[in-house]
């Protein structure tokens, strides 16, 4: 039996500080040694322990009590506590405490963050792989970090992982790993775990064949799949997931993977209600991607099957690329426009998005959006949140909008520059008028003038 290890104080809050220093992590040299050095010292200082009969020392706390305490401690604290005595050390290795782990893989040259110590990684692979259920990898923008993550993944053989997250904290480095390396590592988990429920693999080179492996092994359990910006997946690949995984409740993908067939598959009788559908609409250059249109009947089928579904769309398009969108009624609930969107498009949203709950417009032209907003207030009865960046609305138009929506607007984030004072209201008046209608103090958002 090997002991755990001592972890440096510094390792606390590893996320919060430190320039890529590694946790100082020293594998212990053996139980006896530690027993001699640590336990007696502790017992001497702990007044209770030293005065009571042996059977009532801290070391004799019932197993389940220690476990309960340990569950509230961070890994580092557990590691230190485990060096108190043999019984605490036993608890340290209880599978329950190893269900979740986050591997942090960073290179000093590219990240300010710390990394999980290699020895700890080895310990986990050796001793706790079979206990892991909730696993995530956070990697920086360096390819080596992503490769290291893949290497760990391919060793997770005897696992029953339920949740797997591959997270790039900066530039997406998994995309730089050779596709075969990535795919073989990922399929190790897909094949071995067999009860995966949540998978978050945005910005990775996952491909159709690996999704097939996923489906073949985990179709009963899969509930969540996030794979925004995975360029090697085709519409057919994701359709296969939707066809087989009837428990799927949340899906995130790019627009080019969205098809009528996919929506219909998600709406089949065997399928549970879909709860969230997140769609990223991204284009590189104008004219480069032709965006297809989704049929109204497909959307309708989805809403009939899953009336509560949230449909979240993030747009990062050029103005002229919006043509295919929202020409017919679309059941979108959350809309985020990351760059300029035309007045015309916003007009169509008012007409065709009756389920809209939240709308963020980062930019628009110089013409006031009064009419469009008023129409949205009139037609989008569920709208509760709106954010406006570089656009213009006259103060009167905005007041009209606020009056129509009233206190259902739980979020109202308007950059100050957006509001154009007119004969009826100036900025100060708008603040008090809007506050009155919302029933709470409201100010426009501002940026420092500097």
């Amino acid at each position, binding site marked *: 039996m090997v002991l755990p290890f001592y972890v440096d104080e510094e390792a606390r*809050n590893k*996320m*919060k*500080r430190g320039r890529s220093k590694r946790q100082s992590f020293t594998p212990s040299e053996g139980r006896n040694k530690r027993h001699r050095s640590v336990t007696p010292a502790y017992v001497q200082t702990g007044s209770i322990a030293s005065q009571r009969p042996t059977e009532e020392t801290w070391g004799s706390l019932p197993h389940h009590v220690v476990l309960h305490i340990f*569950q509230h401690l*961070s*890994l580092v604290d557990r590691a230190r506590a485990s060096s108190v005595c043999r019984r605490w050390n036993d608890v340290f290795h209880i599978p329950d405490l190893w269900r*979740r782990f*986050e591997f942090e893989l960073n290179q000093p*040259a*590219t*990240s*300010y963050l710390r990394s999980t110590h290699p020895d700890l990684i080895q310990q986990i692979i050796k001793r706790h792989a079979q206990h892991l259920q*909730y*696993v*995530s990898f956070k990697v920086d*923008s360096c390819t080596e970090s992503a490769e290291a993550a893949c290497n760990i993944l391919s060793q997770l053989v005897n696992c029953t992982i339920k*949740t797997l997250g591959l*997270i790039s*904290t*900066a*530039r997406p480095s998994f995309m730089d790993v050779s596709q075969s390396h990535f795919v073989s590592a990922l399929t190790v988990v897909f094949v071995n775990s067999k009860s995966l429920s949540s998978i*978050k693999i*945005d*910005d990775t080179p996952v491909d159709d064949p690996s999704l097939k492996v996923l489906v073949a092994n985990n179709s009963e*359990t899969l*509930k*969540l799949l996030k794979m*925004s910006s995975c360029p090697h997946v085709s519409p057919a690949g994701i359709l296969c997931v939707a066809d087989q995984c009837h428990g799927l*409740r*949340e899906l995130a993908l790019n627009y080019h993977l969205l098809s009528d067939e996919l929506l219909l598959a998600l709406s089949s009788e065997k399928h549970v209600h879909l*709860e*969230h559908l997140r769609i990223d609409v*991204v284009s590189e*250059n*104008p004219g480069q991607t032709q965006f297809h249109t989704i049929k109204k009947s497909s959307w309708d089928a989805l809403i009939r099957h899953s009336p*509560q579904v949230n449909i*979240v769309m993030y747009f*990062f398009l050029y103005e002229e690329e919006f043509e295919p969108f929202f020409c017919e009624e679309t059941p979108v609930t*959350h809309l985020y426009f*990351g*760059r300029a969107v035309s007045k015309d498009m916003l007009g169509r949203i008012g007409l065709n998005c009756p389920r809209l709950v939240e709308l963020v417009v*980062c*930019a628009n032209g110089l013409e006031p959006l009064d009419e469009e907003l008023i129409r949205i207030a009139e037609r989008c009865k569920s709208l509760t*949140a709106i*954010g406006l*960046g*570089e656009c213009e609305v006259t103060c009167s138009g905005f007041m009209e909008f606020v009056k129509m929506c009233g206190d259902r607007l*739980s*979020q109202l*984030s308007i950059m100050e*520059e957006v509001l154009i004072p007119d004969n009826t209201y*100036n*900025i*100060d008046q708008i603040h008090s008028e809007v506050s009155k209608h919302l029933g709470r103090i409201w100010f426009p958002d*501002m*940026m*420092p*003038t*500097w």
Partner: protein
Amino acid sequence: MVVNSVHWFRKGLRLHDNPALQEALNGADTVRCVYILDPWFAGSANVGVNRWRFLLESLEDLDTSLRKLNSRLFVVRGQPTDVFPRLFKEWNVTRLTFEYDSEPYGKERDAAIIKMAQEYGVETMVRNTHTLYSPDRIIEMNNHSPPLTFKRFQAIVNRLELPRKPLPTITQEQMARCRTQISENHDERYGVPSLEELGFKTQGDSLHVWKGGETEAMERLNKHLDRKAWVANFERPRITAQSLFASPTGLSPYLRFGCLSCRVFYYNLRDLFMKLRRRSSPPLSLFGQLLWREFFYTAGTNNPNFDHMEGNPICVQIPWDHNPEALAKWAEGRTGFPWIDAIMTQLRQEGWIHHLARHAVACFLTRGDLWISWESGMKVFEELLLDADWSVNAGSWMWLSCSAFFQQFFHCYCPVGFGRRTDPSGDYIRRYIPKLKDYPNRYIYEPWNAPESVQKAANCIVGVDYPKPMINHAESSRLNIERMKQVYQQLSHYRGLSLLASVPTIQEEAEPPMSDDSQASSSTAGEASSPISAPSTPPNSDPSTPNSSPTAAAPGAHTHRKRVRPSELPSKQKSKVKHTNQAKGVEQKTDDMQ
């Protein structure tokens, strides 16, 4: 008793409204005005040639003004701690005066000098004039912590009495009473050095736009007020293409170096407003820019790590990328986005850019596109920007990178659309990137999208004569929004960025709380995603365990989450989160809202 005064100029390079200098003159037999400068340090310091030029011009101007009063400026070479003991002895100094410096570094330096002066029996007199209000006073009024929202700050300012009235400028009579003998070799020993002497090459330097000095500052102030009077409109000015260019009425560098007293500016604006709008007393918004400056000075005064992410209690810790190559492209205007490159070129050439332009390049470097730390950007501004005050520079960078001060709303500036909106014809770009001057308006903000024939006709091939865009903006802003959400959701008590954070998703990967075994074994999304249990389920748990769930809000619960107050969160979680000041700020924010 003989009184021999030395007034030590640092900022506050002016003779008008200078209470510390007035104290030096008050009943003194001799007065010497001193500026201490280390020529060796000059070359190595992270300060660009434009800032040095501005400083030297300001010193020249001071010297010229002092000459008119039959005095001179003494520019002493060296470091203050070495210089003062020498001067104290040589000039038999009995009184030392200077303007209060509220910044942590300045406070430390001044404390050392005051102690040293004491040892030499020199009396020191310090007066606060660089800011309208005393930062300490504002902090005291905010329950002993700096206000972290601008609204809060304004509310406190509203409760304060008006800033002290400015003092008149130094007169000949005042100076005559404490005339100091000027030696023959004054220019040699104490003259204002040239840029060459400081190790800058100045050959072929284009005409510089901002001329340092009090004289220039006063002229600009008059023009500034004339224009305001003429427009008679105190609303926020509409930003046009013309706003992007250096204006002959711009004042910010003069406030930074203290060539213009902020109180003089304040009272001039106030008087003008009262004159033109007889009845009303001016709203705070009239003093917008001045108050922002005060805001950041107050936030920085007791925080020596204000210019760092690490160890800075008000700064959100964000896993920025470390990428020197990309940073260099940004700093040198080689990003391939003409709007960004033109701004960085203007900054390097002239030392000033419009505040919208600052927003654009700061957003691009940090949260918008490159995901590089705001500290790197701040350092570049420190080198190049004439009006870069330490506090204002660091504070603004934190603000613009969404690292502090509780912005509610996350939106990115588009490096193509943002500029085009302000300057559709791209004149600004043509001026600073002449290579692109023949591009048609349609492509001037995105030359890489121009057909080859257009590129050829404009004599500028993208990828050859002008760089290709260094990053795909759409893709990177998509990624960065996700990253920001990850960061902010770890600060689960934080109410900021709520619009985006509220986009719902099921409570997926985050395991049900470990302490509840039954839930854990029955596993996964089922229970956790139920809207009823959602608000009480922390969206994230202990930062030391996997927070693999960056978007772990419960469905339908997003409205609840937004309203969660810190006190409603499980205490376990609260105690684990390190940003205690942020928590404080959130409470404060909540107060503001009520």
